[in-house]
């Protein structure tokens, strides 16, 4: 069975601080995809980043970066120089072809001015 765990329920930071959101996943598949989605107060889930299981190279995209560690089944997400508009609930998700997306319980991030 596939499972995604996000141990941090809520995080509060002050604007301009860096913040890392943790994600741990479980799967028996050797090929899979990992995602981060953002859900702002408006409610619509917005795609942020995607990583496939056979590429562990970590990347940076603007203020977003991610750290994929297959050995520990972790896919952590970092926002650099956080802004108030980053306040939202962030979901980590796991998917493979022919299967449904499995979402974690989410981490609520509050960025204070």
């Amino acid at each position, binding site marked *: 069975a596939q499972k995604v765990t996000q141990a941090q329920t809520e995080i509060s930071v002050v604007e301009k601080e860096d913040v890392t959101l943790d994600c741990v996943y479980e799967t028996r598949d050797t090929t899979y*995809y990992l*995602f981060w*989605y953002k859900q702002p107060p*408006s*409610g*619509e*889930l*917005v*795609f942020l980043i*995607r990583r*496939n299981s056979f590429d562990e190279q970590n990347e940076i995209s603007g203020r977003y970066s991610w750290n994929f560690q297959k050995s520990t089944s972790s896919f952590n997400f970092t926002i650099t120089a956080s802004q108030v508009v980053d306040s939202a609930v962030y*979901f980590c998700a796991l*998917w*493979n*072809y*022919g*299967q*449904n*997306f*499995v*979402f*974690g*319980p*989410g981490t609520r991030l509050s960025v204070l001015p």
Partner: protein
Amino acid sequence: GAGVSQTPSNKVTEKGKYVELRCDPISGHTALYWYRQSLGQGPEFLIYFQGTGAADDSGLPNDRFFAVRPEGSVSTLKIQRTERGDSAVYLCASSPQTSGGSTGELFFGEGSRLTVL
């Protein structure tokens, strides 16, 4: 429109009534997913369509829930004899994924908020 469209955006009904929620996916997207999200929780999988057929309906909580996608585009989630515990936001998402194709990104609608009194 360009995105996933869900109607109604809000539905208030009484316990025991029948409800239909509609999802119009992005044109050309073969995969369509229904999720349910309760307050403070992550999306909970209900059912997934690949074309017209339900590829996985293991998330439907019981036989009061049913979904169709007769022409491989618009989908309707049907809930019979609604109960107060059915109150949630019902999310629809579509994806261009095929068996060997894309990498599965989901595009979500804004959801249909169902309140059962």
